[in-house]
């Protein structure tokens, strides 16, 4: 009878031992010998402030998905924090101003079309080869080279002959990229583009010509053949695990390395518990949280102190396919615009993780005038007016209105979609069924005009209103709704080449008002985001009011780890 007692005891003991094995001893509080008050200089040559931790602790870890390679110009959105591996011509500071980086200076021609860049003359690749204007010219030409089939090529189509060259219609000599001397080159655009600095500095990175010519496309697969021109170089790429950046020994520029290592921890594209990784101390910062995670962060005494809150440069709206009924009818669209209670959505359903929107430009974006009562009136919450419009359109109380699926992409905004369908059911008597579909399916079907209605989002590629308005009436755009309008096209075509001014903003605001007035989209909200940085990450370059800034490329330039 007691025969089993022994094995059970052994088993129990085993489980206990295994469990105890998990209890790794917590690391002893560092008992490094007190350093004398000697000033600490990083390998990059920066004298760190007194409260800096010793050199072996100067490591900054962030998370990101795995990139395909280190060819930043073909890898724009696909991982591998390129601000660590390359130095752009100039950097946007926290206040949106430009600071010289790889270029000492630049000037714009009288007609506003040509930008001439004067490069820093002592710049070197991390293998000791000089960086010259030839590298830059080579890189811009390669970006548009038809043979490269670069999926991002459209980003520089506004260079003179950019699109034609990419299509193989003209020679490279015709392209608006010119070498002037060893350290000077110029870029010429088709029309004046006032925000061009942003576009090229976000997207342009020099490639090491000597490596590309020697190794072909493979140069970017191996840290040994992918030197950097920035403060850090790529030391290791452990596929599936991390990329390790260390100071570039040949860097002589304005933003020398403060950290001894920057590590990008590789996370899978879905399901990685980023917030928990951060809380567990496996990453040090750069974690953006939205939605429920944001609610949790704000409620947590420690996390809320480490959170930098901002409204995201994203607009969430109801995509309405206007090619066919019922959304070809402006009355129906306007009814939807008045039937969504955005305040209830953001305050109650989403618990403060978004702000209501009635127009398409996110809060604080250039030219944003979301407080304009006229703009708000076009899509304010007014259930009576909404029901009235619906009746005028021939669907009183939703009678005869087709049942439809309200699509969302990959779970993003599914809860918002549930709330919105409820509001539309209550206020208009129409029946929508929210359904979540995966990304590739969603994008393909929307581009083929197969979706009727979806809760969609747009995120800024660069900081200019043109990025939010240019594509609405462009049939080649993925989110084209079938709507075109001459007045709208005139407004945005007039505004685009103008220097940034109140006048330019007036035009953009008019365009934004048309989108709201005719309910081309039903604008719902802008998500709020918190970006977390551990309190031991000091020296962040912030705006005067202590926020991260819109597209702050200098955030970590002087950052260091404190004890």
């Amino acid at each position: 009878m007691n025969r089993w007692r022994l094995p059970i005891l052994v088993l129990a003991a085993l489980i206990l031992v295994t469990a105890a094995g998990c209890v790794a001893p917590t690391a002893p509080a560092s008992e490094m010998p007190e350093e004398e008050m000697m000033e600490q200089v990083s390998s990059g040559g920066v004298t760190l402030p007194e409260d800096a931790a010793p050199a072996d602790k100067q490591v900054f870890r962030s998370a990101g998905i795995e990139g395909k390679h280190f060819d930043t110009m073909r890898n724009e959105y696909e991982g591998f924090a390129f601000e660590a591996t390359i130095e752009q011509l100039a950097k946007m500071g926290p206040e949106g101003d430009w600071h010289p980086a790889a270029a000492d200076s630049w000037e714009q021609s009288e007609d506003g079309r040509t930008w001439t860049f004067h490069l820093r003359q002592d710049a070197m690749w991390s293998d000791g080869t000089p960086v010259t204007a030839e590298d830059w010219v080579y890189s811009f030409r390669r970006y548009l080279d038809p043979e490269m089939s670069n999926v991002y090529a459209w980003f520089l189509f506004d260079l003179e002959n950019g699109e034609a060259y990419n299509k193989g219609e003209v020679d490279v000599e015709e392209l608006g990229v010119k070498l002037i001397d060893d350290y000077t080159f110029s870029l010429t655009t088709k029309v004046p583009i006032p925000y061009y600095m942003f576009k090229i500095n976000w997207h342009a990175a020099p490639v090491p010509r000597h490596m590309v010519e020697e190794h072909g496309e493979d140069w970017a697969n191996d840290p040994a053949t992918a030197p950097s021109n920035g403060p850090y170089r790529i030391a290791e790429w452990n596929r599936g695990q991390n990329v390790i950046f260390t100071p570039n020994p040949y860097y002589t520029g304005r933003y020398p390395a403060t950290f001894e290592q920057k590590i990008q921890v590789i996370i899978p594209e879905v399901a990685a518990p980023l917030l928990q990784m951060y809380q567990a101390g496996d990453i040090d910062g750069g974690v953006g949280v939205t939605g429920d995670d944001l609610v949790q962060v704000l409620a947590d005494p420690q996390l809320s102190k480490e959170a930098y809150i901002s409204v995201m440069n994203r607009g969430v709206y109801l995509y309405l396919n206007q090619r066919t009924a019922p959304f070809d009818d402006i009355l129906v669209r306007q009814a939807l615009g008045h039937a969504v209670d955005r305040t209830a959505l953001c305050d109650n359903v989403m618990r403060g993780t978004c702000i209501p929107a009635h127009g398409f430009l996110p809060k604080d974006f250039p030219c944003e005038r979301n407080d304009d009562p006229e703009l708000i009136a076009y899509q304010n919450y007014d259930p009576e007016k909404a029901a009235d419009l619906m009746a005028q359109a021939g669907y009183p109380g939703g009678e005869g209105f087709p049942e439809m699926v309200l699509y969302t992409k990959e779970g993003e905004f599914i809860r918002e979609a549930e709330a919105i369908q409820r509001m539309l059911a209550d206020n208009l008597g129409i029946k929508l069924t929210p359904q979540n579909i995966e990304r590739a399916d969603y994008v393909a079907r929307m581009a083929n005009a197969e979706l009727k209605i979806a809760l969609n989002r747009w995120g800024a590629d660069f900081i200019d209103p043109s990025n939010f308005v240019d594509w609405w009436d462009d049939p080649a755009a993925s989110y084209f709704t079938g709507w075109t309008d001459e007045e709208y096209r005139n407004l945005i075509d007039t505004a685009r080449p103008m220097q940034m001014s109140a006048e330019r903003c007036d035009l953009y605001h008019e365009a934004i008002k048309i989108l709201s007035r005719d309910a081309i989209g039903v604008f719902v909200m802008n998500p709020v985001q918190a970006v977390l940085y551990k309190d031991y990450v000091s020296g962040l370059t912030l705006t005067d009011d202590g926020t991260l800034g819109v597209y702050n490329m200098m955030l970590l330039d002087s950052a260091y780890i404190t004890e």
Partner: protein
Amino acid sequence: MARYVLGRIVGIIGVLFFVSIMIFIMIHFIPGGPFDAMPTESEHRAIPEHIRQKLMEKYGLDKPLYVQYLRYMWAALRGDFGISFRYGEPISDFVGRTWPITAQLGLSAMAIGIPIGILMGVVAALRPNTWLDYLTNVIVITTFVTPVFVIAIMSIIIFAVQLRWLPSGGWGEPKQWIMPTLVYAIGLIGGMARFTRASMVDALQAEYVRTARAKGLQERAVVFRHAFRAASLPLITLLGPLVVNLLLGSFFIEAIFRVPGIGSQTTLAIYNRDYPMIMALILLWTFAIAIAYLVTDLLYGVVDPRIRIGGTK
């Protein structure tokens, strides 16, 4: 026997061809191709048509489907499974790098989970309605009703965030292996214990067990030589595909614990419309499962003398 095995292998090759054709057709017919949308964050931009055309040409996707298929198979038969659209890495390198990690994780989980699960199941069957049986039931039910990703996240919150004993994930040093292995093993313990208990209870009630006891055999001999041996037949049926599953990994365990294995990749490959990767991984799965069933069938004959493989006269 040899003839039987040979016949089965020929069958497996047939299955592989059939599956390869089916998958090839299916991946090309699901909406959305690899170059229809921009990657990740910039998906709201359409890839200009002339660039898309070039890319389709570059990867041979502009050819008729049967040409693409024949090309693929011709290369695959020579060991070239193409280059991943998503990672830009040859598929064979990718599998060679990721599979050993998944296999290590699966084997460790098995080494812990299967013996403990079987032991618990046997004990629970021998002592029904005792605290041991109840404990087994609690573990079984808990692991059965709690999805693995909940257990995974909970354990990260407890052991990595709150207690700080273990890293939240990653792969490289042994302490990063502990959580994924144990979370994986817990699920196994539950499953194995439940199944073993059920088969053991059946076997213990069988007439040959009564006969064995009547013969005056020792209880130990009755349990192990007679009851457990009979009860292990359904276990073997279960173990075949289970082992394959473990060797090919779990999406949630690998994604949540950031294990750079192959387990999360089938799903991601479909998500990314990474055609060469989808083909290679599903063929790998098919092959592994087919082999597992073959081995299972052969094992039946070893364990149960009543089963003869290949038919005897």
